[in-house]
């Protein structure tokens, strides 16, 4: 975009946002609306905002209009994001569909599938969940066993999925199924299943943090139309790997530097005569975490600059994800340690809401090094793909 064109577009965006972004949502953390919970439970202004964004095509700025997007460039998208950030607005259409499935369909789906599924993602009206992991297939995902048998005019699916985020609110599920039992990766297909089909049951799983973000999905004699396979029969592993890359990208996504814990520590623990956090052992660990956290966000900024300039040697995402989970999990531990006895509350009176939230967040943080490819799997990827270390033979 030429500078003057960009200036014009920027002004247009600012004007539209001014007219359409509900003021009540400014600087609100949009996280609670994403994925967890049904859209109908979101507040009215959020629903209004999502509708307006969808009508404008900005739910998926760079997608073609026939797919529900605005058909604009990444540069346009950057301007829109910048203008939103400037006034505390946000894109309300962040979902698993946008994050993972949409970009995968753009690469692997046929024209008919794209026209059928992309608009619902772009408009935020159809919610998706990810049916990958199974009780016996976690880190070793390709050992999945959910059976998918060709019945001539439809597929018949039987099996169980687990750790399916938001399954109890999702309309559809992108699922990995086994269409050939004689080969491991080469017997997997990528299948789109309507969650309202007979035989689909989602049961929420309560985690150590007390939340029910995840569910188990039971598939019992579920009939799925033949045309719902993406990328071809037994070709699903390639599609899945691409989708996992999109997932990793978004999990490693640009995190703002976490705010300093020094004020919290001084409030709860006090200061010594020299103005330092009074507990020297905890203070030292807080410092180490702060330094690593800062270098972690510097790593993001560097990766973004390098990606923009197209210089090759950006830090590998697999390593970045591990650094991120490490830094965040340590932070969760440190906060609870700062809170002391106030960090032991579960619910009810006697604790501040922030204290209860911090305790739940600490428990939830243990998932960071498990989901989206565990710490160990990320290290396998770094060792093999980045460092070119040989496979065990």
């Amino acid at each position, binding site marked *: 975009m030429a500078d003057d064109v960009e200036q014009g577009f920027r002004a247009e965006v600012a004007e539209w946002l001014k007219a359409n972004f509900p003021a009540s949502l400014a600087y609100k953390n949009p996280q609670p609306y994403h994925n967890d919970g049904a859209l109908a439970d979101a507040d009215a202004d959020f629903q209004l905002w999502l509708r307006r964004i969808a009508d404008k095509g900005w739910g998926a700025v760079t997608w073609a209009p026939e797919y529900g997007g605005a058909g604009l460039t990444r540069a346009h998208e950057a301007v829109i994001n910048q203008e939103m950030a400037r006034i505390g607005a946000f894109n309300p259409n962040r979902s698993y569909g946008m994050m993972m499935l949409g970009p995968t369909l753009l690469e692997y789906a046929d024209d008919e599938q794209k026209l059928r599924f992309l608009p619902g993602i772009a408009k935020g009206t159809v919610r998706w969940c990810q049916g990958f992991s199974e009780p016996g297939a976690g880190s070793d995902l390709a050992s999945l066993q959910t059976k998918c048998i060709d019945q001539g005019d439809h597929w018949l699916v039987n099996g169980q999925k687990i750790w399916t985020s938001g399954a109890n609110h999702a309309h559809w599920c992108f699922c990995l199924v086994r269409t050939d039992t004689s080969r491991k990766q080469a017997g997997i297909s990528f299948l789109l299943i309507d969650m309202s089909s007979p035989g689909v049951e989602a049961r929420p799983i309560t985690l150590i943090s007390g939340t029910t973000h995840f569910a188990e999905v039971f598939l019992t004699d579920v009939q799925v139309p033949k045309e719902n396979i993406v990328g071809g029969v037994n070709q699903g592993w390639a599609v899945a790997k691409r989708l996992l890359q999109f997932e990793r990208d978004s999990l490693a996504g640009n995190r703002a530097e976490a705010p300093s814990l020094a004020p919290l520590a001084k409030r709860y623990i006090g200061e010594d005569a020299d103005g330092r956090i009074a507990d020297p052992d905890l203070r030292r660990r807080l410092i180490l975490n702060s330094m690593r956290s800062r270098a972690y966000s510097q790593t993001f900024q*560097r990766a973004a600059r*390098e990606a923009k300039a197209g210089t090759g040697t950006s830090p590998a995402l697999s*390593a970045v994800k591990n650094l991120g989970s490490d830094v965040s999990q340590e932070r969760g531990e440190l906060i609870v340690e700062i809170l002391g006895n106030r960090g032991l509350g579960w619910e009810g009176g006697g604790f501040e809401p922030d204290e209860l939230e911090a305790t739940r967040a600490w428990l939830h943080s243990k998932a960071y090094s498990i989901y989206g490819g565990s710490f160990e799997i990320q290290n396998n990827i770094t060792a093999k793909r980045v460092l070119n*270390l*040989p496979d065990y033979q």
Partner: protein
Amino acid sequence: MAVLNEEQRMLRDGAEAWALDRAPVTALRRLRELDGQTGFDPDLYAEMAEMGWTGILVPEEFGGSDFGHLSLGLIVERLGRTLLPSPLIDSAVAAVGALRLAGNAAQQERFLPALASGELVAVLALDEDRRHPQRQVALAAERDGDGWRLSGVKRPVPFGMAAGLFIVPARTTDGVALFLVDGDAAGLDRRALREVLPRGAAILSFDNVAVGPDALLSPPGEGQGVLDRVLDRACICQAAEMLGAAVQAFETTLDYLKTRKQFGRIIGQFQALQHRAANLYAELELTRSAVEAALAALDEDGDDIPVLASLAKALAGDTLRRMATEMIQLHGGIGMTDEHDAGFYLKRARVADMSFGNAAFHRERYARLCGY
């Protein structure tokens, strides 16, 4: 790797080619065998000056190129890979920095061209014994007519045996001042220290050394502020050099994991070793980010240079020491031999960590600056 402009790419590639040809680890080995007191190879330093590296931070009017710290950082990172001992950071960063920040016109005209051309090596006489001073300078300066008299000891002073000029922080009744002291000054005694790696370190004893008013670089009370800014620059470039050493230690070790066989297989097939390598790789990336952010902040004259300097130096210190230790462990017995290079990386890790304040010093400084 940072996003570079054309000129920076040329400098980096030039440094790469030169280092491969002229500065392998054998250059360090040769210096050690010579048992000299200089601590670096003057011919190699002259070649570095010829390529303009000693003038990268010197303004053009004084014979430099003023290309900036990121440019110099790229070069010292490359030289750090093979551990070349040279006073580039001490002289072309720290001494040049001190003269640019605090020198008057006469001092700049007198010394900056000679530093840029490499004819003069100037170093900071900073540490006084066991620890990097934390606002506790013992060496004393007393007024004597319109000049000063300096008494006390500085040790170790890297490249102190060869330097022609010292920048000396000294305590006065009105706070710290910085002095320019000629290497040949009467009453200044230099004694060589033999350290784990050659760097021409010296004990400087100042016995009532008389200097004129033109030797005052930074007056009492202002010296500490200037010194802090000089040390930020030195720290950041030192961290870039340490990053280079850590990268090479990692790559050498990775090569070994891909060739060494035991139990009938390449040891790099073992997951325990693969994961150690993956974790070390992540630490390297983290350190690179901190170093490059700090170099960029110097060139942009950012507000948070002290924080970024301490972050980079502390991370580089921890990462290089861990990398060098793992280099020896993962090489096994051969890594313990003098014949192998691994020991040099371990020794450099310790020496470089102690230069301009070690990791612990900089963690504490970072903590103070950030309100912990």
